[in-house]
C-alpha cells in the first residue's frame, strides 16, 4: 500500500514512504514533524489544518497526500528566516493574538493567502478571509487587528 512520494515542504523536497490515500495533514505531522497544521474536525469545517499550496490556503485533513505531489507546500514553520520573523508572525506576537492558540495556524495561513493577492485588504476582506477558521476562545478581534497591522507594517510581504 505504501508508496514513495515526493513532497516539497517549506522549500525542501523529501521522499516519504506512505499510503498515497493518507490525507496530507497526517503526513506533515508524522513525516515532517510539523506542529502548525492541526486536526480540528477532519471535515473541512474549521481550518485548523490549513497550509499554503502553491500560495493558496488548502485544507489537508481529507485530501490525499498524493495529490500534493509537485506542488509547493508551505506551513507557518517555514515563515521565519532564521531569527527574523515574518511580518505576519511579528504582528501576531505584537498584538498578542492568541489565547489557547489552537487556531493560530489556520488564522495565519488564511491571512497569508489573502495578503499574497492583496497587500492592502479592507476590513471586510480580512474578515471573510479568516471566516473559514474556527476560534473558540474568541480571539477574532485580535486576529483581525494583527492582519491589519501586518499590512501596514510592510509592503513587501
Amino acid at each position, binding site marked *: *500500500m505504501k508508496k514513495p512520494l515526493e513532497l516539497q515542504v517549506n522549500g525542501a523536497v523529501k521522499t516519504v514512504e506512505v*499510503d498515497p490515500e*493518507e*490525507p496530507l495533514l*497526517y503526513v506533515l*505531522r*508524522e513525516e515532517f*514533524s*510539523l*506542529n*502548525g497544521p*492541526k*486536526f*480540528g*474536525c*477532519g*471535515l473541512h*469545517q*474549521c481550518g*485548523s489544518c490549513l497550509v499554503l499550496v502553491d500560495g493558496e490556503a488548502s485544507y489537508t485533513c481529507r485530501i490525499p497526500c498524493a495529490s500534493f505531489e509537485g506542488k509547493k507546500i508551505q*506551513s*507557518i*514553520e517555514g*515563515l*521565519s528566516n532564521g531569527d527574523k*520573523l515574518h511580518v*505576519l*508572525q511579528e504582528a*501576531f*506576537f*505584537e498584538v*498578542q*493574538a*492568541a*489565547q*489557547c*492558540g*489552537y*487556531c*493560530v*495556524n489556520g488564522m*495565519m495561513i488564511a491571512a497569508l493567502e489573502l495578503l499574497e493577492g492583496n497587500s492592502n485588504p479592507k476590513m471586510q476582506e*480580512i*474578515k*471573510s478571509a*479568516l*471566516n*473559514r*477558521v*474556527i*476560534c*473558540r*476562545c*474568541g*480571539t*477574532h*478581534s*485580535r*486576529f*483581525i487587528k494583527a492582519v491589519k497591522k501586518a499590512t501596514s507594517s510592510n509592503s513587501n510581504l
Partner: protein
Amino acid sequence: MHLPNTDRRTFLKTTGQFLIGFNLFPLLNCSPSEKDPNILQAYSGIPERPHGGRDLIDSWIRLDAEGHVTVLTGKKELGQGIRTALIQIAADELEVDIQRCHIINGDTGQTANEGYTSGSNSIEGSGKAIREAAAEAKFFLLQLASAKLECSLEDLNLSDGTIEGLQNKKTSYWELLDGQYYEKTISGEAPILDNKRHQYVGKPIPRADILELVKGKAHFVHDLRLPDMVHARVLHPPTYGARLLSIDKAKVEALPGVLGIFVDGSFIAVIAEREFQAVKAWEKLKESTVWEKPSINPLPDRLFADMRSKAQKPEIIQENPNISEKLNNSPIRLKSAFQRPYHMHGSAGPSCALAKWEEEKLTVWSPTQGVYPLQSTLADLFQVELTNIRCIGVPGSGCYGHNGADDVSAEAALIAKAFPGKTIRLQWMREDEHQWEPYGSAMIMELEAGVSKEGMIQAWDSKIWSDSHSTRARGDAGHFISARYLENPFEFKKGGFSGGAYRNAIPLYDIPALNLKLFNYDGPLRSSALRGLGAYANIFALESFMDELAETSDMDPFTFRINNLKDERAIAVLEELKSKTNWNAMGRSGNEGYGIAFAKYKNTAAYFAVMAEVEKDPERKSFKLTRMVGVIEAGQCINPDGIINQTEGGMIQSASWTLIEAVKYDEHGFLSKDWNSYPILRTNDVPEVEVYVINRPELPPLGAGEAAQGPVAAAIANAVFDCTGTRIRELPITAEKINW
C-alpha cells in the same frame, strides 16, 4: 524525557537528603534552549523532584546556583496567560529580571496540589502563594547576606539577585545558596514588596508562548511525540447508555497498521502505528458494531416543562419572611421567566492525551485542568496507589471548563493498560468532542421583584431550575465517561448539586428582601462546568430583568442600576462605561439599539459592565451585533493586556452562546455533531470589541476570566429590546424570535 515515577519519600531516600530546601542542585541537564518556554523542553530547566507540601517555599519557588528562578504552580495554562502572570509576580517579589524566570505548571511529580484550575481563582490562589513564597525566599536570603556582608538588612541594596552591602561588598542569591540546602516554610511574616516598586506587575508583559505558537513550535499535548508512541481512537457508543451487542473485529484487525482492538464491555478502542490508520480503523469499527440504543428523554420540546414538573423539592438558599409583604406593597411589581438551552464547550482541538504503563506505573500527559484530581480518580479506576500514577499537565486546546480533557486522559490510560510499554496517543474525533463532552446545563430562571415609586428595589424573589454544573472527577472513576461503559462499570453518582447553579443569582444590588430557591433537576444530557457555570444564565436573567424594571420605572438603565447599588467599585465600573460609550449623547434615531448589563462575578471576583450595540434590518427581518464595549475591574491588575485579551475572548464567546448556540438532540441521540450542526460565531459575524481596565494596584487581585459571560448575554438582550421592542427571554436570541 526522563520521568522518574517517584514520590518525595523515595526521592529523599535516594538522594540521602533529609529535607530539601529551596536551594537546588546545579542545572544538571540544562539544554542550550532552556529559556525556550516550549513545553517539550521546559523540563530540562531544573531537575525534577516532588514538592514537599504547600507551606514550603520550595513548593513554589526554586532557585538554582546558576541564576535561574523556577516558579511552580499547580494551576494549568489554559490559554489565559497564567504562566506569564505568575512569573511577573515572582520576578517582582524576588526583584530579579523576568528573563531569569521559568515556570512549571501542573505535574503531580513536581507541583503542589492546587485542585482544579477553575472559577477564575488562579491569581487569587496560586498568585498569592507564589508571591508569599518569593517574599519569604528573598527575606531569608537577605538575612544570609546581612550575616555574610556583616551589615544590617537596611544597609543592603538588592538588584536582580545581586546584593550589595557596605564598602562595595557584594554577594548574590546564587552565591549565597551555593551547595547548601535550606528547608524553609512560608511563615507569612516576610514583608511584601510595595506595589509602587513593581517592575512587571501591572505591565502588559507579552506572553512568550505566543511567539512559539506563531512559529509553529510544539506546544500542545497534541504535539508530543514520544518514543514507542502509537495512535489510538475510541469508538464511543452511538448515544448515552447504549450497549454493545456485537463487534466484528476481524475486518478491522486486517487493516494495515492496526496493532490491536481493545474491547471492555461497551468501551472500544483501536490502536495503530500511524494516526490515519487509527482513523480508518475507527471508521471501519463503526460499521462493524451493533448496539442496543436507549432513547433520550425528555425531548427538547418537553425539556423545560419537564424541568419544572420533575425537579426535586427546592433547596432554600436564601429566605426573607417579609418578602410577600414587600412585594405586595410595591407600586411596581414584575415577574418574568428566562431560559437557557444546553451549551457546548466546543474546544477547537479535540481532546487528546498520552498514557503509558510501565512496570505497574502509569504516566499520563494530559490537558486536564487538575492533575491531582485526575491522579486520584485514575487511582480509583485502576485500584492502585496514588504513588503509582503521575499526571503531567500539558496545554490542550482551550477548554472553558470541564470538557473532554479528563475523559480522554482516562481512556488513554485504559488503552495503555492493555498495551504495556507503549505510549498511547489518543485523540478524539470531532464528533466525540461535540457529543461526549459534558454540556453547560439548560436552566430556567424565574424572577419577581417589587420597586418603589422612587425606583428603589424592595424585594427580589428568584427561582432556578438546573442540572449540575460540576460533575468533575474528584476521586470517583464513574465521573470518567468511559468508566461507565466497561464490562464492570463504575457507577456515576452525581453527588450533591453544586452551588454553581445559583452562582450570581443573588443580585449585588442593595435589596432589603431576598428569596432564592433552587430546584435541582436530573436532565437528559450530560452536564458539568462551563465557563461561569450558572452565572452566565443567572446574570442574563437578572440583568435583563433589571432593564425591564428600569423600563417600567421609566428610568435610564444606568441610573436605575447605580441608584440601587451601594458598592462603590461597582458604581465606578458603570460610570466608566457610561463615559466611555458617551451614553447620554448616543443617537437613537436609526436602526441601532443599545443595552447595558453589569455583574460582579460570583459576587466576590471581578466587576464587569458592558454595552452592546445592535443594528436591525427590518426589511430582511434580521439584526446584527455590531459592537461591544466592556469595562473590567479586577483589583490589582497583574497583566492588563492579559486581562483585556481574556475579557475580549469571553465577550465574543458569550456573544456566540447567546446569539446562535443550543445543543440539539432527538430521541435517537445527538444532532450537534460538528461545526455545521453546532455553528459558533466566526469572524464575519464577530462584533467590534473594546475593553477598558480599571486598575487598583493597592487592592488584592480578583479573578477575571469568567466575568464577561453573563453580562454580555443580558446586554445583547437589552440592546435587542431597545432596538426592536421585543424582549427575548429564551436563549439563544435569534431574529425569528423578534416580533417584526
